[in-house]
């Protein structure tokens, strides 16, 4: 399918793109200068507001303009600047690798740097793409996620980091640096989704790797440093694959270093670079066998986990895969890629069952859902991409809500363990309600993730060999029900004797939490509109066909949503006070806090623990299996690509 070049004049709408890429950069530069909390707070909030508003403006002005290209200026100097910045980043990474004596990272960064230099020396002319920036519906969707969710997380961070330093006085206060990196990251993400030139995509890709590395190691504890280097070498490995792909594409006669060229070309020509970039996407999206970096990244402060490691950076990995989906469609390479995603979904969902640490559960769930998106991207039909984009949207919202709630709750109860979250609905009612909304948004009908899974099932069935993917999806879906429902149950235990410790949650944190909870619900109500104005035009332009839910089904989902929103209100209705009974403990008398006298007459507390099924879903065992199986499929992906792509 050919993209239509509609317009490339530098008008107001396109200036929004430049604002979104450059403004956060400007803010970032201010951050280390500002010392006092109040001023920093104002700057962050105003910047977040500005970014949010401009994102919406960009949406409103650009959504109906199809694909818009920005260019017509001399790209070469910019490319040179980017090259210089890449060298600077490489130097920084090499310095860190030497300082902390991490030789694997050192070697990989060195290899990557060498390849970048080689590319710049030999292929720079091919990199002079006419229209390096662009915007289409999918970019706008990603920009909305980055702009709105990213801004909310920035606001949240103000409250969170203040608490963080109150609880960890031993860690030197580097909040300025924190926000510097965050805003640089946001800038890079906007650049990534608005870049047409693959060299620019690569540059922004590397910036996100650097930001992730710095933020994971932010607390500078031994564990943090170790995990940051794991993230670094895995992402740089992907980066190496990416630059090799660029070199290959540059060698194609005429050069093919822009997305529109790549997508317009014949498949067989670019299957190998597509496989290489796919590999890079897999590392960034923490698919197996590269999942351990994301799990390890949970040592970072919660806003980092919410922003980078669930809503945006890892989405960049699947973003590029969804972009390349037309190339993967109906090829064995694409199917192998799908299998990597599907197996990751299954295995990660299984491991999530056995984890008691809330952030690890969220991490594995993220990996699993990204696996689903990867599976859809590998299939590459219009139905699959519809499902993939829906998954991206809904997951970003619900997961960031969950991460932020867990972060706030962690400050309240001083623990990340799910077992310590017993009865949170009585101890911290509003926070627990946010978490329940987030969890419901992740697996219950009629919320968004379920709609996306439903769409994914329909997409898989119609694909060649799709039934294998459907079987994997069915099992994985069952596993997700288990771990989400038991967590939700734990939160909803009513322990009337416990005191309400919600206290004064920081106002900034509330703003973010309530907004995200609202977004989770509202997007479910308006997803047909989102589908109509944003996703369907994208599908039409790239696939010539649109997928949508039938009118009847939309109506039914709305009914269910309405019921789910209305029914909880019944708790607030006044009703006759019923006689209250204690729980049944075999006739043993219990105190209000559920202490009871055991058979020897000693006072014993009641403790109810969830099932974690470590013997079945233990992390080591399952992860090893996942690594081997996915490793095999990645090998198959490359082999079939080298063999010229086997058409299915």
């Amino acid at each position, binding site marked *: 399918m050919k993209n239509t070049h509609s317009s490339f004049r530098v008008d107001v709408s396109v200036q929004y793109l430049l604002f979104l890429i450059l403004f956060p950069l400007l803010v970032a530069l201010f951050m280390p200068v500002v010392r006092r909390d109040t001023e920093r707070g104002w700057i962050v909030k105003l910047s977040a507001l500005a970014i949010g508003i401009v994102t919406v403006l960009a949406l409103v002005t650009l959504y109906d303009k199809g694909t818009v290209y920005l260019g017509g200026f001399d790209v070469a100097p910019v490319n040179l600047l980017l090259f210089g910045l890449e060298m600077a980043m490489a130097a920084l990474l090499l310095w860190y690798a030497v300082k902390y004596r991490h030789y694997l990272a050192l070697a990989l960064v060195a290899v990557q740097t060498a390849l970048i230099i080689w590319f710049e020396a030999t292929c720079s002319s091919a990199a002079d793409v006419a229209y390096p920036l662009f915007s289409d519906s999918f970019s706008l969707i990603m920009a909305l996620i980055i702009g709105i969710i990213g801004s909310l997380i920035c606001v949240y961070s103000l409250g969170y980091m203040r608490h963080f330093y109150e609880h960890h006085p031993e860690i030197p206060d580097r909040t300025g640096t924190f926000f510097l990196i965050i805003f640089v990251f946001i800038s890079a993400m906007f650049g990534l989704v608005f870049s047409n030139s693959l060299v620019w995509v690569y540059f922004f890709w590397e910036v996100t790797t650097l930001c992730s590395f710095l933020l994971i190691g932010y607390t500078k504890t031994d564990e943090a440093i170790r995990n940051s280097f794991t993230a670094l070498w895995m992402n740089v490995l992907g980066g190496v694959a990416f630059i090799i792909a660029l070199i290959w594409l540059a060698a194609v006669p005429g050069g093919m270093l822009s997305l529109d060229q790549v997508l317009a070309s014949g498949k067989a020509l670019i299957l190998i670079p597509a496989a290489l970039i796919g590999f890079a996407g897999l590392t960034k999206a923490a698919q197996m066998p590269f999942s351990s970096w994301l799990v390890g990244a949970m040592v970072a402060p919660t806003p980092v986990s919410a922003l980078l490691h669930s809503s945006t950076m890892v989405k960049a990995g699947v973003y590029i895969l969804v972009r390349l989906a037309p190339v993967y469609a109906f090829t064995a390479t694409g199917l192998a890629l799908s299998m990597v995603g599907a197996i990751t979904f299954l295995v990660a969902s299984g491991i999530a069952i056995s984890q008691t640490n809330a952030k690890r559960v969220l991490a594995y769930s993220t990996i699993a859902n990204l696996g689903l998106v990867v599976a859809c991207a590998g299939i590459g039909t219009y139905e699959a991409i519809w499902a993939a984009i829906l998954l991206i949207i809904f997951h970003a919202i619900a997961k960031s809500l969950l991460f932020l709630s867990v972060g706030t709750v962690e400050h309240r109860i001083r623990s990340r363990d799910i077992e310590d979250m017993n*009865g949170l609905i009585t101890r911290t009612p509003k926070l627990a309600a946010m978490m329940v909304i987030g969890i419901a948004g992740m697996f*219950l*009908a*009629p919320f968004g993730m*379920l709609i996306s899974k*439903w769409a994914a*099932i*329909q997409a898989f*069935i119609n694909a060649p*060999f*799709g*039934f294998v993917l*459907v*079987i994997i*999806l*069915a*099992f994985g*879906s*069952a*596993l997700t*029900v*288990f771990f989400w*429902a*038991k967590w*939700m*149950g*734990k939160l*909803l*235990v*009513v*322990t*009337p004797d416990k005191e309400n410790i919600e206290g004064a949650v920081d106002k900034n944190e509330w703003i973010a939490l309530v907004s995200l909870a609202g977004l989770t619900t509202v997007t479910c109500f308006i997803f047909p509109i989102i589908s109509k104005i944003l996703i369907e035009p994208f599908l039409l332009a790239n696939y010539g066909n649109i997928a949508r839910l*039938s009118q*009847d*089904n939309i109506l*039914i*989902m709305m*009914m*269910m949503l309405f*019921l789910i929103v209305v*029914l*909880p209100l*019944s*708790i607030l209705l006044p*009703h*006759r006070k*019923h*006689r*209250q*009974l*204690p*729980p*049944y*403990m*075999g006739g043993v008398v219990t105190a209000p806090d*559920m202490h009871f006298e055991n058979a020897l007459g000693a006072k014993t507390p*009641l403790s*109810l623990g*969830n*099932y974690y099924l470590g013997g079945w879903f233990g992390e080591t065992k399952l992860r090893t299996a996942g690594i081997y199986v996915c490793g095999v499929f990645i090998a198959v992906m490359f082999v079939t690509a080298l063999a010229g792509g086997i058409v299915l």
Partner: protein
Amino acid sequence: MISLVYAVIFILLAPVIGGLLSGIDRKVTAHMQGRVGPSIFQPFYDVGKLFEKDPAEVNGTQRFYVISYFVFAVFTGALFFAGGDLLLVVFALTLAEVFLVLGAYAAYSPYSHVGAERELLQVMAYEPIMILSAVGIYMVTGSFAVSDILAYPMLLVILLPGLFLGFLYALTIKLRKSPFDISTSHHAHQEIVKGVTTEFSGPNLGFIEVTHWYELVFLLGFTYLFFAANWIVGIIAVIIVFLLELFIDNTNARVKWQLAVKSTWAITLLVAIVNLAVLACVVVV
């Protein structure tokens, strides 16, 4: 095409039919055990009594969970009989079950808690085969809409024998029959007192009972789908399946949850791979 009329008929008639079927269940069970057993209208007396009891509760949220469970289970059945999307029906039923589980968790009671965990294990066990049955039906008929599936001219069970067997296996779990009545069961079977329903009493328990009747009718309807092409065969098949479930219930002892989950998964995997693979080849050819 969604037919509102059938949905309303379901909502009104299902409790009657479901209650009668439960009564027949107890009568046949009694005779299998050499007893006389209660009247077939006994379930109605039971529910009537429950609504006459004092509405006492463990905490203020129980009623909400029970009502939600009830509403969404009825919604599921109504959607199914109205001819709606089969996959959405499966997901809606999961939603209803989750509400019951949450109600059990909320009670902060050990038996309730273990019952809830086991209920979730059950859901985890049968969810794959439910989804895959719907998928298999789609692969044969080309549609998820129950109205289209009913109109399909050929007996689905001929093309989906494996999936049907898997479905039957899961049906035993969903109907809470031995050997898979691990979270709660009817009559007086106990293990963890009453499992999920331990802390519910009076009208709340009455609602749960009625919801089970709705679920029973829905599940038998799902069974009927496999034989929909010929309505006589369909009715006979449903009756045979119902009696078969009773027979299995009375001749098997409860198994441990590990065996329940593992065996269901193993069978699901086997029948799904074989049946769907064969179907995929047939469809391609």
